[in-house]
Structure formats: structure tokens, C-alpha cells
């Protein structure tokens, strides 16, 4: 699985560039992270156990998995908020396993944003820089430079007129942007984001998602984002790392993971509605996505099967209206499965339908191990 991860990072570039790079753009993407045999357990339950994992410099890597899969622990180990029991973490070739959180080239956005309630937006954003200036000694980072950088990053995030506000006077979306600004202002090569969108309203979340992608493009750093939402992972990431029970299930671009899920777990975890899994006559498991099926004899004109595939037959049990589409949950000979039709398709409960899944859309898994065949 590591070979998948060592491909050159290109997705960030595919998203295009803005004509005039703003002030916070770093010169070249840096912040590649390498984890080597990192292990961590809480009590007797292993939280993270990864032989090797790399996060390419400049990527927006999303760690995704069900709750308890170790994604947050992994992020916190990169941040330095947790100590691995074994193994090493490198950032840009430097072993930072034992480095202090403030000195390992990472910044972090917390799930609850963790804004200091007694400070203004400007003070929140500038807090880290002020400390940095203090620790580095006099003259290393002049006050004017700090306030200029704070202003720049706040302008970038549309907070220019909120500098004097306190966190409780801000909306949820503004708070999230302050948290982003506070992390970005320090120009660390790696930005860690722990479920940064989960505390936002549903309406705001889609917008924030797009903003995050734009931001990643503009600052050209390495973003590592944790989420439990597979749709968010696929839409945000240039690279997705699927974890379960502390172990790596699959890593790759969203397209790769979507098209070729490495095993049954990944196949089931990604996509909503989930992939249909049905045992076939040869003792293997067949998987296909509800949207990939072509109805036979229902739609008009009936889709002509141009290539080989599998035909599934079943009785419609429940139908669901989902906007421009209609879901039909069916009971077939080998178990339940679902298909998605255009909304106009006349499917009725109790009706027997047949669908064709083209061979290219079929996934085969080993029934015992669950690995892709």
C-alpha cells in the first residue's frame, strides 16, 4: 500500500493557481511527513499501529475512518500532543518525534476551534507570533511585522473588519476562520485540522469546504485533515488515508480509493448509499455502487448492454425519493441490494426488476479476507 502513496503529488496542481499569489504563499511546498512503525495504545487497546505512512509535501491529506479508528490520535502524535510508544515521525526529513509541539513545524486547528475567549481576534491570531518573538529574543520578530502578518492572514480569510472582536461576538463560520488564521499566521509547513467542519451548520459546511480547498491552493503547505465523514474526505482531499482500528486500510487519491477500494471495509465505508455486496455463485463477493446499475426493461428506451456484466434480479421493497434520483431497495436472490434510477423511472413497490452492472463497475472481493481480487 505504500507504493500507492509515493506517487508524485499532482492533485493540488490540478486545481489550478490564482493569478496573484497572496502574501502568505510559501515558496515551495514543504512539510512532507513520514511515519515509521508508529505505535500507540491506550491501556491494552491499540490506538494506532502503522508500519509506514507518508504524507506528501503540499498535499491535502485526509485521515478518515469510523470513530475510534485512531485518526485523531495519529494527528495528535504529529502535533506532539501525544507521544508514540514506538516509532518515529519525520517532517521534511527531520526526526521530530521528541520535539516540543511548538517547535516541530506544525500548526493545528481544533475541532472546537479553541479560541482564547479573553482575547480579541487579533490577539488570538497573533498569540503564537508574540510568543515566538519573545522566545527568539529582541528584534527577531518586530511588533510591526507581527501585526502586519496578522492583518494579512485575516484579510485573506475575510476577517479584516473583525480584528477587535472577541470570539463570543463571532458567528460559527467566523470562529472557524479565526482558528484557521491563527494556525496559518505562523507559516508552519504542516497544518493539522481536527474535524474543522464538524462544528459548523450543514449549510455553512459546504461553503467552508470550498474555502478550505481554495486556502490550501493559496498557501501551498501540507494540510492534514481528520474527519469521520467519507464524503468530506473524498471532496476535500488530494489524498485520502482510510484507517480502521489504528491500522491503515488504504491510502491514495480520492479517485483511486473510489474506483479501486482495496478491501471490503473501504468499499463499504466510502459512498452514500453504501456499495452493494452480494455473494456470487463462485464463493466470491461482488460489489457495485447503486448508481452504476442499469435497469433492464424499466427505463425507456431500455439500455442496451454493450459490454459484459452481471445481471441482478430482485423485488422492490422500498423506494426513496432523493431529488433528481430515486433509490430502490430490493430483495434479491442473494440478499438485499439497492439501485439508483433517474427520478422519472417508474418503479413501484413489489415490482420485480432486473439490473445490469457493467463489468467495469464490478468489484470482486475474497469472501474470507475481504481483500480485492
Amino acid at each position, binding site marked *: 500500500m505504500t507504493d500507492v502513496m509515493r506517487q508524485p503529488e499532482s492533485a493540488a496542481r490540478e486545481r489550478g493557481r490564482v493569478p496573484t499569489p497572496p502574501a502568505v504563499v510559501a515558496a515551495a511546498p514543504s512539510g512532507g511527513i513520514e511515519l515509521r512503525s508508529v505505535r500507540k495504545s491506550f491501556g491494552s487497546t491499540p490506538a494506532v499501529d502503522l508500519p509506514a505512512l507518508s504524507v506528501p509535501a503540499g498535499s491535502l491529506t485526509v485521515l478518515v475512518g469510523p470513530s475510534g479508528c485512531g485518526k485523531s490520535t495519529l494527528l495528535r502524535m504529529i502535533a506532539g500532543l501525544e507521544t508514540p*510508544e514506538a516509532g518515529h515521525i519525520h517532517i521534511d526529513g527531520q*526526526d521530530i518525534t521528541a520535539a516540543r509541539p511548538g*517547535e516541530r513545524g506544525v500548526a493545528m486547528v481544533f475541532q472546537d476551534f479553541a479560541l482564547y475567549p479573553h482575547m480579541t481576534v487579533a490577539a488570538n491570531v497573533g498569540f503564537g507570533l508574540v510568543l515566538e518573538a519573545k522566545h527568539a529574543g529582541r528584534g527577531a520578530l518586530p511588533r510591526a511585522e507581527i501585526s502586519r502578518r496578522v492583518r494579512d492572514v485575516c484579510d485573506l480569510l475575510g476577517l479584516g473588519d473583525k480584528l477587535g472582536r472577541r470570539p463570543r461576538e463571532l458567528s460559527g463560520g467566523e470562529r472557524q476562520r479565526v482558528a484557521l488564521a491563527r494556525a496559518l499566521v505562523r507559516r508552519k509547513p504542516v497544518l493539522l485540522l481536527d474535524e474543522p467542519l464538524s462544528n459548523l451548520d450543514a449549510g455553512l459546511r459546504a461553503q467552508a469546504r470550498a474555502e478550505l480547498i481554495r486556502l490550501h491552493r493559496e498557501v501551498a503547505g501540507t494540510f492534514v485533515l481528520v474527519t469521520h465523514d467519507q464524503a468530506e474526505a473524498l471532496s476535500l482531499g488530494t489524498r485520502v488515508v482510510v484507517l480502521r482500528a489504528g491500522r491503515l486500510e488504504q491510502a491514495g487519491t480520492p479517485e483511486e480509493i473510489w474506483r479501486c477500494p482495496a478491501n471490503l471495509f473501504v468499499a463499504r465505508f466510502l459512498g452514500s448509499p453504501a456499495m452493494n455486496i452480494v455473494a456470487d455463485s463462485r464463493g466470491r463477493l461482488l460489489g457495485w455502487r447503486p448508481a452504476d446499475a442499469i435497469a433492464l426493461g424499466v427505463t425507456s428506451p431500455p439500455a442496451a448492454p454493450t459490454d459484459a456484466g452481471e445481471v441482478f434480479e430482485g423485488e422492490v421493497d422500498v423506494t426513496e425519493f432523493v431529488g433528481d434520483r430515486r433509490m430502490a431497495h430490493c430483495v434479491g436472490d442473494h440478499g438485499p441490494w439497492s439501485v439508483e434510477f433517474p427520478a422519472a423511472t417508474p418503479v413501484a413497490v413489489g415490482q420485480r426488476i432486473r439490473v445490469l452492472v457493467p463489468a467495469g463497475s464490478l468489484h470482486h472481493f475474497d469472501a474470507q479476507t475481504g481483500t480485492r481480487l
Partner: protein
Amino acid sequence: MAGVTLEPTPVSPTPPAPPAQGGCGVRARSGPWVYSAPAILSLATWVYVPMVATGVASLLDWDLITPARYVGVANYRRLLADHDFHRAIWQTGWYVLMMLPLATVVPLALAITLWLRPGRVSSLYRALLFLPVVLAPAANAVSWQFVLNPLQGITNTVLADLGLPGPGWLNDPSWAPVVIVAMTTGKIIGLNTLLFSASLSAIDQSTIEAARVDGATSWEIVRHVIAAQLIRPVALLGLLCVLLAGQWVFTNVALVTQGGPNGATDNVYYRLYTYAFTFFDTGTAAAAAVVITVGVAAGYVLVRLAIGRVRHADAPTAG
């Protein structure tokens, strides 16, 4: 800030990172010691070393001047045979009996009354009721002694005007403990009324409103809604308060009667004080301290067990 400095990063792949500490931050092993050292040293020097020392001293014959001599449990044997100590134990029990209703029923009634009719006047009442808690015991003692002066005090003057005989109050062995309790009452009632009021305001107001809409009278609300939710915390708090009120009684006795007249206001705390600082019999005083502490601890545990078996969510405890 020792222990949080950056160590040279290990290069070899073998050394495992330090074991997890929980909490936040990697290099933070001596940090907690640095910050808690003053507290730990304070508690050690002024609480735990003295506690052990008292335990040791209880086995010694020591008057603080001549060298101490080990006498085993002789102090305990003498103490438990001491008539004065027996009397002090009985007196202490009498104090507890007198204070129990003052720590439970009275403050509960006050808290409920104030709570049923909230408003400006109730706030004023509450503030006045709490005032004795912050008042200095020495000034309080001077006041009570003056008012209850048997010859010229206002109490006996008024009683005489009414044709009633005025008792000797603090000079009268049967009245003196009652006066001591009365002097202590202000603090107990004030504190417990406050704590019960807080428990009451934690009760869901909508329950009460629903009951009122159903036409329940105040008394019915108190009986059915409040009593059910409050009975255990009140019992617990009342009993704990009596255990802790021992200190207030001690102070008042030391200020006003010094155990007299004829030992009528004595109690175990004051007896211990007498052994130590009147007779300079350190060994016996230490033995008394051990016996009292064990007794208080036993009382505390018994109360906890009795109430804890049917424990409700957040029963307040006196602090």
C-alpha cells in the same frame, strides 16, 4: 520550567519514545512536580508530618520540657479511664443532638419559604441569614456575653420586667451548653440555608409550574415535589455539618466558657486543647487527638454509607 527543554533528537531507530503520560505535551515529566511542589511541601510540613507526629507523640510521656519517654499505649489507657474525657464525650453527644435540628429542619424550612416566594425581600432575608457565617467569632462572643449577662444584661432585665426569673445563662451548668449552641446556630443556619437554597434552585422549575397549574397548594408542592428530591442531600448535609460544626463550638467554648462552669460546656475538642495547653500533657493530648480523629472519621464514613447507599446525583456536602 525544567524538563520542557528540547532534547537532541534521537537518530537511531530503536529507542522507544517515553511512555505516554496522558495530558498534553510531550516533554513534561518534571513540570507537574515543579508546579505542585509548593502544595505538596505545604501539606506535608503542616498537615501530614504533624499528623504522624501526633500519632507518635500519643505513645510518649512528654511535657515539652523534660525528654520524652516511650510509654506504649499507657496514654490511651489513662485517657479512656479519665472521667473528664468520658464527660466530654457525653457533652459532645448532647451538642450533636441539639444541633441536628438546627442544621436540618430549620434551614430547610427557611430555604423552602424563601424559595416559594422569590423576590427582593427574600434576597434581603437570605443575605441577613448568611451574615453570621462571615462574622468574627470573637465579636460574636463579646455580644452574647454582654446580652446574657446575668445581672445587668438586657435579657434578664426584660425577663425581670415580665416577672420571670432570669437564669445565670453562661454561669448555669444546664443553660451554658444551650447558649454555646445558640451562639453557633447563626453559622449553621446561615450556611445550610444557603446550601439548601442552591439545591432547591436546581430543581426543575417547570415541575413546580405544572403542579401549580394543576392547582396544588404550596404545602402540597413542598410535600410531593421538593421533599422527594431533597430529603437525602439534606440529611447528608445536616449530619456532615454537625461533624464540622464541632470546630465552631470549640471556638465559642474557648472564647466564652473555657469548658465551664464545672465542665458543663466541655467537649472532646476542648478537652484535647486542655490536655495540651493547660496541662502540657502532650502524650495524652495526642492520644485524645487520635481517638477523636478516628471517631470523626468513623462518623463521616457511617454517614456516607448510610446516605450513599441511596445516593442521589449531586448531594451537596459541607466544606
